[in-house]
């Protein structure tokens, strides 16, 4: 019953590795395997985002976290700013470096107290 999802609507797909894909849903099955058409990968850093064209994508259901219905009203009100792909990739790299740095600091502090910090989640699977 729940799979009676609208066939020609733009969906926001959030994947387990943290990626956001926005495209038109063409097919879905009971495992939430998806076929998306005219997909763009949207990278968010802070209040800015950048889009990369991806075309037709097939996603294996186990990697899907959630599907959201693209709402034009909310998109307009969100106040997000679009910037070019190079800039957003640069910003993303910076953000990742910062996080790495924090991680190493944390690990160092834990080690000084005789504890080991094992991150529960890795970069490839945030769930």
């Amino acid at each position, binding site marked *: 019953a729940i799979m009676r999802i609208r066939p020609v609507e733009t969906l*926001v797909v959030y994947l387990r590795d943290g990626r956001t894909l926005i495209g038109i849903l063409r097919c879905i099955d009971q495992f939430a395997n998806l076929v998306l058409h005219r997909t763009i990968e949207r990278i968010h850093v802070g209040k800015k985002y950048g889009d990369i064209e991806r075309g037709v994508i097939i996603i294996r259901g186990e990697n899907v*976290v*959630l*599907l*959201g219905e*693209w709402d034009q009203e909310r998109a307009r009100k*969100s106040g997000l700013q679009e910037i070019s792909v190079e800039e957003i990739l640069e910003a993303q790299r910076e953000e990742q470096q910062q996080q790495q740095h924090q991680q190493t600091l944390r690990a160092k502090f834990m080690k000084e107290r005789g504890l080991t910090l094992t991150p529960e989640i890795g970069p490839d699977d945030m769930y």
Partner: protein
Amino acid sequence: PRFTGNVLATGSQIYNSNLLFETYLYISALTMLFYSFFKSLIGKDVVVELKNDLSICGTLHSVDQYLNIKLTDINVTDAEKYPHMMSVKNCFVRGSVVRYVQLPADEVDTQLLQDAARREAFTQRQ
């Protein structure tokens, strides 16, 4: 359906949800306890917490046998951290990524749920 003391005592709101739940229990297949339970909560406001700590507040629209959840009119509790959710009003959450589903306390009769779970465990063991 077996009526508990709660149901007979007053014409409270719990009555309707319980009756619905009982009906679903009889209609549905044997090992569908939480599926039936969630079906009786359709239309209520719930907060779904995912395994990555993202909390989504919304109205429960539908649920399926995998406990995938469809929420309408969502509201993300920490919107700043999750900018990709800002353009989304209705969403479908895969069951496997849900950590908790927070429910309003007055919509759930824990006694009924406990009895149903006990019965289910008993029949499953047989």
